[in-house]
């Protein structure tokens, strides 16, 4: 008797339905935000489905939101760059060296992953206050202060992403280059770095996304004129809700998806997914 795969059962049907339910649940808020942003400008509250079509609210977005988006982009870019600069040597050391206490060092490097963001926010703020009163260097509400806070959140992801690619790297490539007379620095620059580039991109992208999306750390560390976009949104959603929030969110969504499509075209989503599951 030949074995036949069991016919699609009730359980499989239910699981497939559940999957579409999850997709709808995950994607509908984005569609609703975009659709409701096109509502008519004659009423200051949100309605979905929109009662008409207009671009009214896109012209009502206060200038401080566009400024916040610009500031967020700058912080996220700085965070992505700095986290990769730290993560490349850290990942090289974690994968290639062996010394007593390496497990402990690896544990310390991963520690920020377990610390709740609110705790990181309050810890950095109090450290900045202490530093400020001791040396006069005030990092609160400054660009370097925010980048440093986000660097703390993002570096473990960047290290994980790069280490994952490094661990799979074929050592013969580097041996071949070295045996042909390349110096260690030249091997690193011409062989190792190009091969682990997807991991570097993945880590940088993940750092960028964390920095551009998180609220609690930027809420504590930001301040007058140094407010990130998510914090600006967070404050407005609590205290002065307006349909203009939908318009500016839709603009950010469109930019994000345009960038994501560019990334998919150039390096692929694989690197991103790997970075995300590296923890």
């Amino acid at each position, binding site marked *: 008797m030949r*074995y036949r*795969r069991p016919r699609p*059962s009730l359980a499989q049907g239910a*699981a*497939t339905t*559940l999957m579409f339910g*999850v997709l709808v*649940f*995950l*994607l*509908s*808020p*984005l569609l*609703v*935000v975009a659709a*409701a942003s096109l509502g008519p400008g004659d009423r200051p509250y*949100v309605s979905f489905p929109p009662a008409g079509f207009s671009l009214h609210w896109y012209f009502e977005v206060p200038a401080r939101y566009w400024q916040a988006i610009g500031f967020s982009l700058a912080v996220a870019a700085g965070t992505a760059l700095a986290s990769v600069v*730290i993560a490349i*040597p850290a990942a*090289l*050391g974690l994968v290639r*060296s*062996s*010394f007593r206490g390496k497990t402990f*060092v690896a544990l310390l*490097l991963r520690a920020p992953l*377990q*610390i*709740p*963001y*609110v*705790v990181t926010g309050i810890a*950095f703020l*109090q*450290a900045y206050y*202490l530093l400020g009163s001791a040396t006069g260097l005030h990092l609160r509400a400054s660009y370097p202060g925010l980048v440093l806070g986000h660097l*703390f959140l993002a570096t473990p992801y960047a290290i994980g992403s790069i280490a994952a690619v490094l661990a799979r790297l074929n050592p013969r490539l580097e041996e071949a280059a070295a045996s042909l007379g390349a*110096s*260690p620095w030249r091997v690193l620059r011409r062989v190792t770095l190009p091969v682990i580039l997807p991991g570097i991109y993945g880590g940088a992208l993940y750092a960028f*996304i964390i920095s551009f*999306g998180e*609220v*609690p750390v930027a809420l*504590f560390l930001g301040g007058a004129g140094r407010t990130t976009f*998510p914090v600006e*949104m*967070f404050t407005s*959603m*609590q205290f002065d809700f307006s349909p203009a*929030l*939908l318009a500016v*969110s839709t603009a*950010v*969504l469109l930019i*994000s998806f345009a960038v994501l499509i560019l990334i*998919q075209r150039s390096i692929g*989503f694989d690197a991103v*997914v790997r970075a*995300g*599951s590296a923890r």
Partner: protein
Amino acid sequence: MRVRWGIVMLPAVVVSVGLLAASQLVFLRMSFFHDRGFGLIDAQPTLGNYLIVATDTFYLGSLYLTVQVALIVVACSLFIGYPVAYVLTRMPARWATLIIAAIVASALVAEVIKVLGLIVIFSADGIVNRTLVALGAASAPIKILGSITGVVLGLLHFTLGFVVLLLFSVLQTIPASLEEAAGVHGASPLRVFWRVVLPLSAPGVLTAGLVIFNLSMGAFTAVSLLGGGRILTLPVLIERTMILETKYAMAACLAAVLLGTVVLINALTALAVSRSRFAIAGSLA
């Protein structure tokens, strides 16, 4: 010439561990002082804040609520995410890739934007409540925002993508031929799942559960906005204590309690796992 990679990584380790030590030591030290208001503290260290947290039902209730919400979210995420990830591994690769791309895309969007959409959908006159009332399932709009239900929905929106992606990568490594082999030998689909698929994916389920637990314990944005100031979990309470009440030492103490709870539960889980592995190894020997 051999490269000493341990030396190469030294500056990076110094920066990372420096940030870790500096920030954590400062707030932990701060938690042992008494607030005088307006961000000022007494000079004498004391255990007072911890005693207040350990005895005051308000703070204990907040800790309990935080753990409760996190456990509900872990349970819901795993129960929903597992079958979804399983279906994805057993469907044509082209479709699975498309659906995973959609999940990744939604996971990458800034949380505030997703929460904004959830608020529009679940508000009193939102599409969900109007549908429920129109269908006669509810006589009046249900209060979802400002309740635990709303907070859990918001956190699920955050965690489901994580769980599905993580479990997908785990379930993908279980070959379908194993299930077929069990089926050939007469195991019912339920038995195949219970005896083959679930045990092989158990470590992945545990990892996913722990990641979700940590995320939910520390969740701030979604809980603040969807809880409408009524669901006071520890992260929300910490922000209030620090910014509205400017009690820096008390906020630091609450942060230490939150961090301690998370670290303790992670350590206990790791211990339980290593014990059970020894137990399995022992029974085989």
